[in-house]
């Protein structure tokens, strides 16, 4: 048992320090590919062409097979790596031009054009593969690695090619950062300023092309799509800035590449390409849940917090207006309707804990409620804000008395607080004094008791 564990530790250590030459090549190569894919993919996502890589990578297949057929016909040997990649490059470029031609002048919508190009080119690739297998099924079998990838067999020169391409790609993205961002955000404006948007689009396509072609042999033509799409989509959950998104996406891509190849090196049965994509998928899920800007968890918390805030404001306003009408210092919980909804009752308890309310039980299961001094101040500001909005809506937006309460209710919680100052200016309101309510107050409190 203990020897078993020792061996595991040794293997793990060996992998982690990249002791094995082969592991080192693979890990570094795929990590570089992930970084480049993440960076380029960000611009593709922002240009709303996330799936262009899909069509493009499928479109490389006929070129690869054709290059193989030509090379073996000429007797150069179909395995010649450069020739195959050149074939991929040529037919991928053809695919891009086909998509461009189909979408230009509104012939086809973008998604249809992608679908058409993808299926036609890939079909041609499959048909040609049928030919290649007749030619010599032994060497043609190698072609299928382009579809599924064969990361483990990556050679040093492959890794160097990937590394160089990644550096060039990332470099281009950094150098042309502001131009690429502009054509992604507002291409019309860019064109109006004399920028050659077509040229930059072409640059972007070429970068995608580069990543796809060098990535083909590493992870295969289906999974290279993942490297272009997933890091960018995941990075969007973490940031609202283009620059940071680029960094995050590159980081996620690199992390996924590193993690995937490491895992596959640890257990011999795990194909590296698939592991890289699964690692990326895992990172995407984590980002979807925990992302700092748009993650679900954060949004749920924010919604919950806003709901609590609204409950609190409603309760404070209900009590304040009840006291305003009766002119007393305390009122009964049942009067405001605290017993009716249990959310409101819970809110009152919370306010009591926060030191804003004093709640004393009285006979008959009711309770007597009064403000603490700080509670009264807080309530006054809440009521005042609400009434400012009511006045504003009635004057500027022609709300009528019946609906203004709800309208203000929505606004005061949705709009940023600094609008309040503008509002005061707008209404020439005294910044301190309490405003009268623009509509008659219901005897049961505002909006019929804590709407």
């Amino acid at each position: 048992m203990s020897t078993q564990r020792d061996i595991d530790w040794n293997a793990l250590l060996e992998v982690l320090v990249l002791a094995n030459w082969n592991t080192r090549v693979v890990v570094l190569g795929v990590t570089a590919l992930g970084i480049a894919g993440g960076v380029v993919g960000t611009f593709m996502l922002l240009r709303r062409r996330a799936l262009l890589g899909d069509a493009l990578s499928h479109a490389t297949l006929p070129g690869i097979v054709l290059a193989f057929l030509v090379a073996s016909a000429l007797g150069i040997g179909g395995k010649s790596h450069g020739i195959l990649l050149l074939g991929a490059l040529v037919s991928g470029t053809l695919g891009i031009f086909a998509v461009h031609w189909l979408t230009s002048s509104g012939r086809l919508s973008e998604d249809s054009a992608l679908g058409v190009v993808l299926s036609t080119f890939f079909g041609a690739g499959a048909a040609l593969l049928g030919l290649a297998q007749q030619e010599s099924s032994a060497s043609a079998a190698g072609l299928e690695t382009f579809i599924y990838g064969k990361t483990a067999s990556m050679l040093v020169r492959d890794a160097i090619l990937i590394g160089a391409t990644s550096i060039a790609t990332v470099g281009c993205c950094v150098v042309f950062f502001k131009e690429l961002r502009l054509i992604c955000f507002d291409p019309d404006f860019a064109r109006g300023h004399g920028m050659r948007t077509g040229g930059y689009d072409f640059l972007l396509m070429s970068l995608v092309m580069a990543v796809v072609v060098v990535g083909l042999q590493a992870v295969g033509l289906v999974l290279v799509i993942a490297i272009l799409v997933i890091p960018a989509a995941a990075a969007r959950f973490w940031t609202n800035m283009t620059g940071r998104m680029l960094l995050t996406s590159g980081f996620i891509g690199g992390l996924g590449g590193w993690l995937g190849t490491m895992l596959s090196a640890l257990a011999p049965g795990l194909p590296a390409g698939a592991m890289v994509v699964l690692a990326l998928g895992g990172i995407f899920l984590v980002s979807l849940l925990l992302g700092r800007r748009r993650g679900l968890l954060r949004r749920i918390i924010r919604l919950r917090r806003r709901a609590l805030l609204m409950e609190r404001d409603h309760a404070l306003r209900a009590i304040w207006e009840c006291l305003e009408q009766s002119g007393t210092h305390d009122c009964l919980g049942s009067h405001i309707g605290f017993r009716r909804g249990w959310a409101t009752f819970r809110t009152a308890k919370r306010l009591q804990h926060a030191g804003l309310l004093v709640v004393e039980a009285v006979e008959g299961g009711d309770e007597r409620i009064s403000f603490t001094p700080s509670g009264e101040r807080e309530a006054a500001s809440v009521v005042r804000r609400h009434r400012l909005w009511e006045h504003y809506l009635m004057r500027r937006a022609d709300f009528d008395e019946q609906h203004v309460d709800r309208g203000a209710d929505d606004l005061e919680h949705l709009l940023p607080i600094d609008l309040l100052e503008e509002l005061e200016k707008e209404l020439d309101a005294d910044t301190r004094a309490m405003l009268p309510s623009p509509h008659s107050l219901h005897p049961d409190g505002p909006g019929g008791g804590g709407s």
Partner: protein
Amino acid sequence: MTDWNLFFDGWIIAIAATCAVACTLPGCFLVLRRMSLMGDAISHAVLPGIAVGFLLSGSRSNGIMFAGAIIAGFFTAFFSQWLRRFGRVDEGAAMGVVFTTLFALGLLLIVQGADSVDLDPSCVLYGALELAPLDLVTLPFTGGLRVPRAFMMLMIVLLVNLVILISLFKTFRIAAFDPSQAAAQRMRPDLAHHLLMAMTAITTVAAFEAVGSIIVVAMIVVPAVIARLFVHRLGSMLLVAAMVGVAAAAAGHYTAVELPHLVGYGSVPTSGMIAVIGGLMLLASIMVNPRQGVIPRFLRRWRFRMQTTREDLLALAWRLEERGTAPTATILSQDLMSARRVSRLETRWSLRRLVDAGAFESQGETLRLSDSGRRDARDLVRSHRLWEAWLTRTIGLAPDHVHDTAMRLEHVTDEAMRERLASETGAPEEDPHGRSIPD
């Protein structure tokens, strides 16, 4: 020439055609809703479902595997929609994330569990259409009629799709066209949407199992796009798409068998060729479709240009005669070339055609208008001067500013428009420049 086997090749074409038609039904709506790539996504994403089904049961082609694939297909369709709506992920990216991850999972499962067994990931892509006729099942209630299993399967899917579509055609149509209006009319666009996703998933999985995913991806998008180029009504679009699908299937199989022989090879996978033929059919449609086709448009533009040149020459000759000058080829072409950008070659050629058509009578150097030529020329000049009058009086353009416009408009003015022009301008005797308007 290959030996055609009626049984084998007949069934192959029948299976491919059934598959194509089954795919075009949801395909038309996917294309209209700009979700053409859903078929692509689902057909990649079913891999883990298949792998799990395979690992559980240990054999290909059975219910568990099918169920696994369907579940994976549904998951792709609905999870990518969910990501778009609630995760606020770009639509394409959402699809891309889901299907690549699932595909990777499928690959992993296959490599891990199915090493020794014959589940080859490549059959996911191109299927085994050529072998499908070998796997026969007996149809119930037909007295022992045996058909390929794939055919029966696809036929069932096709019928299910048809029943769903026909019974909910109105809902589907309005949901494809305008979801918000559909909601307003309580037509349940979400129901149509979910059903569409379900149809896509089931069709993709059934078709993939029989014939591989290339055909699915191609037949979901291509026939619908082609049909859209030719017809503008949903019903006819479905019909045309189905016909295109059948044609692509037949032509695809034929070329897959015959074409490689020309270069000395054996036949290639039919599924790949069907996709290629689909793409070529689309290319041809874009080129020749009568309304928007590239070639017809070019021809029409060219023809109109030549017509314009000839008509300008006629009207020029008429004006020369009006001023008492005898028109010659040299004067006419020089006048025209100074009036607008036109090549000498084009002018000369147009003149020759006018002479051949009998609009001009050649008398030495001079070109005299014939009676028919003079009639046409007079109509043109009348249109021109009426337009000048109309543009000045009704629109209030300056008289020295209407010539260019009138010169362009005269070529598209027919008798009825001339009558209206005359009546709206009060049938004037003279145009704004003081020249008389011929009757």
